[in-house]
């Protein structure tokens, strides 16, 4: 566990009655290193350990508690606090999707290439059918990747959900027409699957921003791969600047990536991580729990 791993670094705190600037120096360095090894962005990690140092300094070591364990608890609690977002939970503590009654609720999925958007669109549709008894419409707005439309159609068929697609069109047109189709088809939820794009591709970032302006989504979700490294800070910031993000979905957490990107993305965008992908199957989408993520990041 973390206390054992950092036994050497925490030697200077052991036996102390108070956590001071001097005796937490090694421990703080060890935490920063652990965060970097977990792929937390460097600037985010630095800011985090500074906050932790401030919280730890002057803390009276609780009697009967190993000071190292107390320090770890401060780190853990601070990580959990950073990745939590109580406003994104309902009264029962479940992740909230901003449903509207006035028209079909629109959910826009965006993110870098290969992050898991198309698969997650289907997963989210299935989850909301089960949880909220909605009648979703999946929209194949990726007209650039070979067989992307086919991929969504196959997934839609697997879960018994309609897929809206157009042959020769453009993504914004498909999305606008999908809204009209949804009304006629009595769908109360629309999930827009968009093409993967680089945050430095100006034309494509403009396109997705245009889709958001056109469809005014209740939810704009950034789909991010859990194994993303330092670059998460750049892509998350760019997507947050160009889109009215309402949340993040972190995918492929069934792997062994420590997932530091979770902390980076939350720190940089302030938007809640709502769900996590934990496999390729439709049912493998779960609600995000900050305390589980904190433990995973710390290793």
């Amino acid at each position, binding site marked *: 566990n973390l206390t054992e791993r950092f036994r050497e670094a925490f030697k200077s705190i052991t036996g102390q009655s108070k956590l001071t600037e001097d005796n937490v120096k090694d421990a703080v360095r060890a935490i920063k290193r652990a965060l*970097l090894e977990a792929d937390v962005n460097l600037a985010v990690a630095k800011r985090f350990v500074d906050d932790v140092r401030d919280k730890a300094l002057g803390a009276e070591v609780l009697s009967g508690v190993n000071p190292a364990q107390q320090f770890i608890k401060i780190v853990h609690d601070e990580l959990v606090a950073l990745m939590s977002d109580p406003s994104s939970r309902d009264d029962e503590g479940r992740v909230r999707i901003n449903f509207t009654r006035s028209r079909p609720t629109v959910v826009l999925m965006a993110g*870098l290439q290969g992050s898991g958007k198309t698969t997650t669109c289907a997963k989210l549709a299935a989850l909301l059918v089960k949880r909220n008894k909605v009648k979703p419409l999946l929209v194949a707005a990726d007209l650039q*990747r070979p067989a992307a439309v086919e*991929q969504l159609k196959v997934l839609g068929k697997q879960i018994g959900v309609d897929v809206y697609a157009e042959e020769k069109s453009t993504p914004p047109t498909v999305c606008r027409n999908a809204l009209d189709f949804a009304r006629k088809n009595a769908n109360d939820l629309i999930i827009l699957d968009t093409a993967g794009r680089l945050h*430095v591709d100006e034309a494509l970032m403009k396109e997705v921003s245009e889709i958001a302006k056109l469809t005014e989504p209740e939810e704009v979700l950034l789909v991010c791969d859990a194994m993303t*490294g*330092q670059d998460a800070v*750049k892509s998350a910031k760019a997507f947050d600047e160009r889109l009215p993000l309402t949340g993040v979905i972190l995918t492929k957490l069934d792997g*062994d990536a*420590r997932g530091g990107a979770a902390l980076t993305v939350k720190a940089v965008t302030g938007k809640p991580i709502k769900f996590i992908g934990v496999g390729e199957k439709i049912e493998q989408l779960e609600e995000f729990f900050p305390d589980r993520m904190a433990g995973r990041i710390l290793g």
Partner: protein
Amino acid sequence: VGLGQKIDEDLLEQLEEALIEADMGVESARLLMEDIRKAWKGGEIETGADIFPFLKADLKHRLSRHPVSLRMAESGPTVILVVGVNGAGKTTSIAKLAWIMTQEGRKVLLAAGDTFRAAAVEQLVTWSKRIGCEIVTGKAGADPASVAYQGCERAVKESFDVLIIDTAGRLHTQKNLMDELAKVYKVIGKVVPNAPHETILVLDSTTGQNAINQARMFTEVAGVSGIFLAKLDGTAKGGAVLTIDRHIGIPVKFVGLGESFEDIQRFNAAAFVDALFE
């Protein structure tokens, strides 16, 4: 030597941070700084102004040790197995390899070995049509090893120069899927002697330290011989390949610079290292 002059610690810290931000990893970056300190003490680096050029030269040298050319078969088809985690860019990278080989006048055959994911076969079939090369496909849900087998048989029978086998994305932590890949690898070797001649691991440039685990585990079951570093047209630097080079020694052979089949380049160590610090 710096005549007993202390090394510029601020500069070292800046360089170390640049490497961490390039996804080289905190331990590898630290080891590299130790190498620089040794070189400074040993007189290999004379002034502070020489530190950065020394570092770049060292990295370029490391990454240039291995050949970036593909190992070709002495006779018969060259078999290239393409592997990697979900969404890394395998299928698109295969299209790029097929294009480059076709441009070189080789007769290329593709095998749609991802029999699992929705529309995976259709995706590769579309690419084969755009490039103008043949493709072997199996029934939906077919055993990937059987598609690899059919690909190898046809490549030999119809005298193809190159066979490139696509596989389903898989996380290296999924034992059953890694066993499945080991079976594909074994079957290839049974049909074509010394095959696969190359096992290419496609790595997403945005991947952090997990890339090292991927390289290790995929090498264990399928003998990775080269890396295709995809999505290098983004802002990620792909520094994890430096750590892979240091600990496992797998060379980067190609980089992916976009979503079209032409967006491929053979790996250029000098350009890669310069870009790390930009």
